């Protein structure tokens, strides 16, 4: 066999970078065409920031704001950075449900029988979901300004959005794994809800943790969504950020280091 000089794996993984970019580009185009074909799929990214902001600011804003000592306006300043964190988490579920649909419809088998790096499929999905997330964040900031949020630190705002995106892309590996392992998109969504809901509410996103019972505080202190929300708050409003920033980045690195190989392995070996 003439292939004997090359180790099979070396010969097999040799796709030039340009090739990877071409494949990822073609798959991104596919995901964008989905949105054009089915604009309703953007409803969550459009409506969630509006609905959640209005709900939290007008339902809880008064009383939590009072406790914070700044009234409803004070709560707007408090909650908006947290909403950026929450939004990025919730939308990162999309990679899992999208993957699950692709497996069930047989499209994934077509991709996997083509000579492309399997990573291209993953990265295209992550890229498109990150773009959706930026869209939702933009909507969120428009609503935020309308309900009275003061953007005083633009660089801090961009840094907060960037940090949320970094953390979200690590969480996406978890959802990708769920998308590959679970049977259908509904299960992915249900499981995602079970994971995200306690993490989001058991955090400093919506309310300060000081008044929570000790055991819950212990949880919220280690909850990466708390540190993400606190870091975003520090970046956007001023205040100490270093600790929260590093803890959040540490979590991102750890989650990616563990879950990316798991997701890729499950993806490769899925029968």
């Amino acid at each position, binding site marked *: 066999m*003439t*292939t004997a000089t090359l180790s099979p794996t070396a010969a097999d993984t040799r796709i030039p970078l340009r090739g990877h970019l071409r*494949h990822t580009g*073609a798959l991104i185009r596919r995901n964008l065409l989905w949105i054009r074909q089915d604009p309703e799929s953007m409803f969550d990214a459009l409506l969630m920031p509006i609905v959640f902001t209005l709900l939290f600011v007008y339902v809880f804003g008064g009383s939590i704001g009072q406790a914070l000592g700044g009234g409803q306006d004070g709560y707007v300043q408090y909650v908006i950075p947290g909403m950026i964190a929450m939004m990025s988490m919730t939308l990162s579920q999309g990679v899992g449900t999208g993957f699950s649909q692709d497996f069930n419809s*047989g499209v994934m*088998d*077509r991709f996997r*029988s083509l000579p492309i790096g399997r990573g291209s499929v993953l990265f295209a999905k992550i890229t498109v979901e990150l773009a959706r997330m930026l869209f939702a964040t933009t909507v969120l900031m428009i609503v935020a300004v309308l309900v009275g949020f003061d953007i005083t630190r633009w660089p801090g705002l961009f840094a907060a959005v960037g940090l949320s995106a970094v953390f979200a892309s690590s969480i996406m590996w978890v959802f990708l794994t769920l998308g590959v392992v679970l049977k259908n998109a509904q299960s992915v969504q249900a499981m995602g809800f079970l994971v995200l809901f306690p993490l989001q509410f058991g955090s400093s996103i919506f309310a300060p943790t000081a008044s929570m019972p000790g055991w819950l505080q212990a949880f919220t202190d280690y909850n990466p969504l708390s540190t993400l929300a606190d870091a975003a708050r520090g970046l956007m409003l001023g205040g100490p950020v270093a600790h929260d920033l590093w803890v959040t980045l540490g979590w991102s690195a750890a989650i990616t280091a563990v879950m990316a190989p798991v997701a890729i392995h499950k993806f490769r070996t899925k029968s």
Partner: protein
Amino acid sequence: MGVDTVDGMTRIDKEPGGAAVTVRGLVKHYGETKALDGVDLDVREGTVMGVLGPNGAGKTTLVRILSTLLTPDAGQAVVAGYDVVRQPRQLRRVIGLTGQYASVDEKLPGWENLYMIGRLLDLSRKDARARADELLERFSLTEAAKRPAGTYSGGMRRRLDLAASMIGHPAVLYLDEPTTGLDPRTRNEVWDEVKRMVGDGVTVLLTTQYMEEAEQLASELTVVDRGKVIANGGIEELKAKVGGRTLRVRPADPQELRPLAGYLDDLGITGLATSTVDTERGAVLVPILSDEQLTAVVGAVTARGITLASVTTELPSLDEVFLSLTGHRASAPQDTAPADDREEVAV
């Protein structure tokens, strides 16, 4: 045929008429279930190999291994010179897959589906565009080019599937039950397309549950059951083995059924198997090999003075094929052959 070198690697076998697919001792288990239990298979370049078997026989598992979607537990498979386990990426470049499972994206328009696959196969933008246009034209889908594939009719959908699998000019094409679930007219349409593709010299591995489909498209046949090959050979050879066609003779008077069956067997003019009686539908089933035998049977019955209500010929159903090859029925429940397999013969 096809690509001689990919990524600077030479294919093993390039002689025309050589082996396009070689499978030896392929095994795949799912827990206790032996989906494939030591399968051997040879497909020569430019031919159509039919793999016939009921649901659960291992047909789809075989196709999935040969398209690198599954890793075998044991055994070896080489397609167009590439080993499925050791050279999956090179192999993916020379195969096309159309199946029950591998599918186009329903949300994308037909053209976009083909363009995307062209790009994934490393065609330039210009070439991918041209190839998409060309294939839509060839499979008569130009008018539906801009509509999402999800809005296509069953037949259009299969044609788009076929077009998608042809983009990379594959040397070997897998058709996994290409007409399951289609109505007879659409099925004929798909058959015509497949025949055209075969005319262009593609090697095809076709899985099917229908003897008729195998007869229409394949030159050679491998019959599988419970992960094992139970028969293989030329299609004519196997048809002779299972009795070619079945003649369904229905006497006007049901009382005549058994005497008629006995009489026909005594004459000894039938195929390899003996006749059987279908009391439910009041007919004697006579396996025959040739038109001469058909004429002889009708002649003999007429001479005997038995009035016939109808005589029809049909291809053996999968069940009958299994019965004659293995002595038992196909192991998994499956659909009977489509109703229009029967051609009326004037009486």
